[in-house]
């Protein structure tokens, strides 16, 4: 797929001819220098934005054919998000934040027990009933991960989930994501600047100037095909 921001003189080709597939249960790391197009790629996969050209299939569904409401429903049920900042709703409790994707879906009942189970999984059972603006950044990010997982999504997308955290906290968050991924067989696509924090992962994709390459290094010379 391609993504071009803007038109004419000021147009930016943020993604050029990117094509890859992700296997179920894979922990995929997306790396690349600043401005290379990592967030753009994640936004496309997350259906937060549409590619200029190309298609994205998730669970066999051609997401380009979905209308606005269907995209919302699809995001809700098939995608989990973890942002650079936790982005919890400050006036809700931690638990309510985690349950939010469930409540939007309106298929309730087990929402509370599932959410509490996940909060226990991320080590926040004691904070469940605190308001979201009363916990630390690291705790908020754990809650955000729980929120990303609560709907048992096909893919969890995380854009620099440790970007706002100190290195020690970041370490625990990375471990948490990796262990949750393993425990739940959950597919993760994680964008990061800090390759080292993640240690061993299933697969790495490097973005350079809007192009995607398998592996840790992009070839030093890029062949341009028109």
């Amino acid at each position, binding site marked *: 797929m391609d993504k071009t921001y803007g038109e004419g003189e000021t147009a930016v080709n943020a993604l050029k001819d990117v094509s890859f597939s992700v296997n179920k249960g894979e922990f995929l790391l997306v790396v690349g220098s600043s401005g290379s197009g990592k967030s753009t790629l994640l936004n496309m996969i997350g259906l*937060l*934005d549409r590619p200029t050209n190309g298609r994205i299939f998730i669970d066999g569904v051609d997401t380009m054919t979905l209308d606005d409401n269907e995209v*919302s429903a*699809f995001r809700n049920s098939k995608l989990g998000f973890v942002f650079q900042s936790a982005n919890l*709703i400050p006036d809700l409790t931690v638990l309510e934040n985690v349950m939010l994707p469930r409540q939007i879906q309106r298929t309730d009942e087990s929402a509370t027990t599932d959410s509490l189970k996940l909060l226990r999984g991320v080590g926040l059972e004691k904070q469940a009933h605190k308001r979201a603006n009363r916990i630390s950044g690291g705790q908020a990010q754990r809650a955000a991960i729980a929120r990303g997982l609560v709907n048992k999504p096909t893919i969890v997308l995380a854009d620099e989930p440790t970007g706002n955290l100190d290195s020690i906290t970041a370490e625990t968050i990375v471990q948490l994501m990796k262990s949750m991924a393993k425990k739940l067989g959950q597919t993760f696509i994680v964008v990061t600047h800090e390759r080292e924090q993640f240690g061993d992962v299933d697969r790495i994709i490097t973005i350079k100037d809007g192009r995607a390459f398998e592996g840790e290094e992009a070839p030093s010379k890029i062949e341009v095909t028109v």
Partner: protein
Amino acid sequence: MLTNKRGSLIGAVLAVSIGILVIHVNFVIFQGLYDAIIRDMSDYRFGDVYVIDEEDFIEKSDLALVNWFERIPYVEAAAPRLSSSASINATKYGQKTEEFQIPVVGVDPFRDTRVSTIHETIYDGQYVFSRNSLVVGSTVAQDLGGVEVGDSLKLKIVDRWGQDQLKRFIVTGITNTPGGQGLDTSVIIHIDTLRDMLDRKGDTGSLLVKLNDPTKAVEVKNFFLASFPNDDFKAETIDESAEDALRGFRSGIAMINMIGYFGMMSSAFAIVTILMMLVTSKTREIGVMRAIGAKRKDILIIFLLQGVIIGAIGAGVGTALGLSYTIYAKETKMQWEGSLALEVSYQWQKTVQTALMAFALAIVASIYPSYRATKLQPIEAMRTV
């Protein structure tokens, strides 16, 4: 959940409440003033139904007419009055004061106290009780240089033949009405004395009819007119009597009401502004909600609900405040600096209408901000920190 900004919501609720309160206060004051004037016109000068002869004087026996009216169950009492004008001058400390032309009202003291409360407005002395007693309006008393009870006054009246008739009276009382709807600028004497002076024995100028159920005024009036088809009677209810006198006042009220409604409109603008601020300050949360799957419709509902809440609480609080003010005004018989006491009434229909209008307006005012909230793109929204 997105919208838990108490401060701004309180502001919006306050805007609605104040809008409603202003309408209530306007209504209490101006409708109260209007009704007070009508009340006083009825109490002092017109009764509930006012009967005159179309041409001239009522020649039928006043006693017969009074009896006729008082047989109707709705009628409390009826009383005749006769009006004329007189020249007056007081003698005070042996000195004659200037001559005035003033209205004279002749009353039948016994009957008049049953249809009118003018006798209750005598603040010094008492009402007309004998053929030569005179009640002076406070304004007249002042103009004459401070007439007091016990003073003697000479009235000069031109009779039906054009002859001057002079008679000396003793001031027995001074009448003063707050708001001046009474007979402050007239003098009151016994109707028979006035008849004698005018040489109009048995003639009556007007008949005041007081009802025990004022809502039956039209019925009584029509029944009367139908019963005396061959006399040139003219009868009008107090509303009709007030109609001409208060037409200007009424359009004034309409204007004040308009101002109240404009006030309400500005409350609506306040809501729009406050909700726009709310949407702006919640941009990031809206983005998150959209990212985790909230549809445009969900966002719309959240913010519209905010309008509903603002409208409901605002309408409730505003109506409560407005009614409190109304009750206060009614219980304390609110008046200013000796002017007439407001005639406050509860207008439930208008109260409900105002509350519903404010409620609807709050919802309408929340439509645009809500719509704007739905137009936020999740990535754009989350980019703003």
